[in-house]
């Protein structure tokens, strides 16, 4: 496996090998799926949306519905105005969504299509809406696409009536439906009425009923998005994923926000819980305190199996920051911590965690790729690999125990239904991590060293 990857590291500035990021539009599509009765629409050639739908279906094992402007060479020369206008008319006619959320592609961005003008010229049926965002694939990563689409919705739809709706907005970050459910449960336990935006729970983890629903029950509703401007406060989860939409909401509607890390691990979850408690002025209920206590109990019980184990962590920036914090709390050494997303803020956040926990000799790098990570590991190996599905190649090549977490996970089931966030999410991650490490010990140890009790 990956037999051509040399140990010797050659400098690279132009050739990306085995990336750890993908392009903006898929993030925009995912965000739009988190809006109720919304049809995501890709303004580009039809291959883009075909890849994105495929990719999301492979991660969630669910339908990922989205339409396309189906550019041809003619449209690429003369502009895609006529294509998108025809597309919008057909989508409302045939699929009857309440809203169409258009995102651009590298094709329509390169030719400079002006979606504002096109949308202005459209005949939009009464009571229906069309919004858009710009997601040039050659800027940032799918994380940018996700928050750009959020900002598209806010720019078009959100209002301020001047009357508070008494709610707190939560921007969950680029996470799974299982994580969104856990954040909502936590808020509800603390008595905080919320609007989660976007919210893919109920959409990308919809149940089997025998009937396909084009627009399942889940998703943030249009009145909820409109009402974001009337929220009292906002918890923006993920320093990199949620900061820009949070700043937009503050700038346009004066909604104050608190920027928090994704609630992965003890401290980040504590922070989330305390912020919610501050908002509702309610004491943290026993149910949460009990779960927290269970988590700490498990950490103490299993410490011997994670203490000083070295780990390489890779994936999306905020997810990786969260996982790094969790690993540090477990006494592990996060030797290599990378994201493909080109955001230097990532490095600062991870290095701050290194410093806080007093670990030395660890590397954090943004705009990195899995080829580079693999070469580092070849030069100085780790005990555990923690990240997305493509890590399985490195895990196999170097025979390293591997735990999947983040996006995308294309080769396993159930992961998107259950949380990685919150106290229960940390318990779940500890189970995965210790199982894999201990299974490996059991498999590789000498017969006389095989312990029945551990």
């Amino acid at each position, binding site marked *: 496996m*990956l*037999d*051509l990857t*040399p140990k010797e590291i*050659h400098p*690279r*500035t*132009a*050739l*990306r*090998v*085995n*990336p750890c990021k*993908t*392009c903006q*539009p*898929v993030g925009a599509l995912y965000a739009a799926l988190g809006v109720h009765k919304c049809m995501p629409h890709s303004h*580009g050639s*039809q*291959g*883009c949306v*075909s*890849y*994105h739908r*495929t*990719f999301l*279906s*492979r991660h969630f094992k669910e*339908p*990922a*519905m989205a*339409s*396309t*402007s*189906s*550019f*041809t*060479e*003619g449209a*690429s020369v003369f502009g895609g105005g006529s*294509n998108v206008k025809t*597309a919008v008319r*057909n*989508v409302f006619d*045939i*699929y009857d969504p309440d809203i169409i959320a258009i995102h651009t592609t*590298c*094709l329509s961005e*390169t030719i400079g299509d002006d979606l504002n003008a096109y949308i202005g010229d459209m005949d939009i049926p009464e009571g229906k809406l069309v919004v858009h965002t710009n997601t*040039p*694939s*050659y*800027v940032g990563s799918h994380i940018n696409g996700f928050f750009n689409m959020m900002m598209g919705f806010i720019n078009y739809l959100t209002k301020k009536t001047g009357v508070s709706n008494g709610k707190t907005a939560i921007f969950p970050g680029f996470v799974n439906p299982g994580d969104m459910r856990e954040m909502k449960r936590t808020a509800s336990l603390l008595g905080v009425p919320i609007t989660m935006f976007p919210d893919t729970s109920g959409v990308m983890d919809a149940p*089997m*009923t*025998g009937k*396909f*629903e084009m627009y399942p029950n889940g998703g943030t509703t249009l009145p909820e998005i409109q009402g974001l401007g009337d929220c009292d406060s906002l918890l923006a989860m993920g320093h990199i994923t949620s900061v820009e939409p949070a700043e937009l909401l503050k700038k346009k509607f004066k909604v104050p926000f608190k920027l928090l890390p994704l609630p992965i691990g003890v401290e980040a979850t504590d922070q989330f819980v305390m912020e919610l408690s501050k908002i509702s002025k309610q004491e943290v209920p026993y149910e949460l305190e009990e779960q927290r206590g269970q988590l700490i109990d498990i950490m103490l019980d299993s410490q011997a199996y994670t203490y000083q184990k070295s780990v390489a962590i890779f994936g999306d920036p905020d997810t990786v920051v969260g996982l790094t914090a969790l690993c540090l709390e477990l006494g592990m050494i996060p030797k290599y911590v990378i994201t493909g997303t080109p955001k230097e803020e990532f490095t600062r956040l991870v290095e701050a965690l290194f410093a806080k926990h007093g670990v030395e000799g660890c590397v954090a790098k943004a705009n990195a790729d899995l080829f580079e990570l693999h070469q580092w590991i070849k030069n100085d190996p780790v005990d555990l690999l923690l990240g997305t599905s*493509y890590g399985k190649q490195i895990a196999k090549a170097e025979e390293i125990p591997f735990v999947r977490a983040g996006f995308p996970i*294309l080769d396993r089931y159930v992961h998107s239904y259950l949380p990685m966030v919150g106290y229960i999410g940390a318990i779940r991650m500890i189970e995965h991590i210790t199982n894999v490490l201990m299974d490996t010990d059991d498999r590789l140890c000498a017969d006389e060293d095989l312990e029945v009790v551990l």
Partner: protein
Amino acid sequence: MNERERMLEKYAARVYKNRKDHVIQVDPAVENQSITANTRTVPGIITNRGCCYAGCKGVVVGPLKDCLVITHGPIGCGYYSWGTRRNKAVANEGGQNYVPYCMSTDMQESDIVFGGEKKLEKAIAEAMDIFNPSCIMICSTCPIGLIGDDVQAVARRTEEKYCIKCVGFSCEGYKGVSQSAGHHIANNGLMKYIIGTGDKRPTAKHSINLLGEYNIGGDGWEQERVLKRIGYEVVTVFTGNGSYETMKNAHLADLNLVMCHRSINYVAEMMKTKYGIDWLKVNFIGFGASAQSLRDIAKYFNDPELTARTEEVISDELAQIFEEVEFYKSKLKGKTAGIFVGGSRTHHYQELLRDLGMETVIAGYEFAHRDDYEGREVIPSIKEDADSKNIETLTVQPDPELFQERLGEQEREALRKEIPLDSYDGMIRVMQGGSMVIDDYNHVETEMAIKLIKPDIFFSGIKDKYIIQKGGTPSRQIHSYDYAGPYAGFRGAVNFARDVTMAIYTSAWAYVTPPWKSTPVLEGVYTGGAS
């Protein structure tokens, strides 16, 4: 109103006008039933089609294991086509295998503004430094053609500078109307720059190339196993587990076998003109079809020893799978299927399903042309439109040194009456009356077809799979085989039969409706009216 009309009635007039000619119900009374294909998708329709890049890089070029393929563009296209098509490959002895890798120029905004050629050349320099490949292929994504990067010129400069093979493909996603344009562009590149550049002659008495076989789930290996058992030398495969190293000698084989007609027929035709190699349409999906194809190949070579060996291998292979096939047949006989795939498999799998006692009642292609539906004789009557004109048609001439007729014209004419030599009759002719055929099928039509015709199982791709399954119909992916396979040849047929049986009979279907929806759970005592 028949099913076709009921399906189309949902559309507004302008969409109806477009779609009505892409949907037919097979009528055996009509000779040469015609369908519209290979035209633009209506914008807004949730099509299953991909793009030109997907056809070139994803399908044809990607599987060539010793070629370092650089996707020139922003990161997405390279990322999505990384390890996702299941074209298995093992490095040739002493050779390289790039299939597990994804290489891209990961273009940034400044590259779009100032041009990406310099970055591409730098990426090639870095690739040479790290990997030292013998062949580099460059696949362009949408922005490349628009900003005017000349990948052909970069390829030529690369060849001069490093003395390696380098081919540039201008397969920008917006070209053509589907993946099909990408297949054509890839075929042109392989023909222009690779085929015919080697001189290693096959050593066996009978040698073949296998065209349009991408080794999904190991399909190609199963076919090669049987072909080698009979005694054929497989010079190269286009392109599953294929390589630059072997493909350059393709012109020295005796015969081309064509599996996927849609994606590779251009190479087959051009090799016939340039090198005199005949091509034979084969189908190794289904044990009946596999046996037939092996007999057709033997007929072509007309060698009694080979014919005898062919029969021997066929009967042995059939005997090995007999018991299992009979078991699965007992489970599947009489069931009906719908199949929506890309360009040839919709036809191929009907033969395998028929082997198992199943009939295909709905069939659709994503990116086929009329000849895939109606047979190659319609090619001269297909009108070129603006989209197809944009894809180069290579004109090749007989090679003065390498052209060599394998058969005399009379011999060939006689054979044509018996085997599909240099010809293909298309899919519609194998289908029963009343069956639905849909070109460039989309989400609405898929749902409607299932609702109206109610097949027992539906074969499609990942974008459809969960829609169909959530609607209560068993669904298997026939692009990726749901990560199983091989499905080709004799042993593959058993794998397929087992997976189809599993999909239909899996116990989870019984639990879809909760018991409380069909049984009353509230218990109470009737108290009656006292007054």
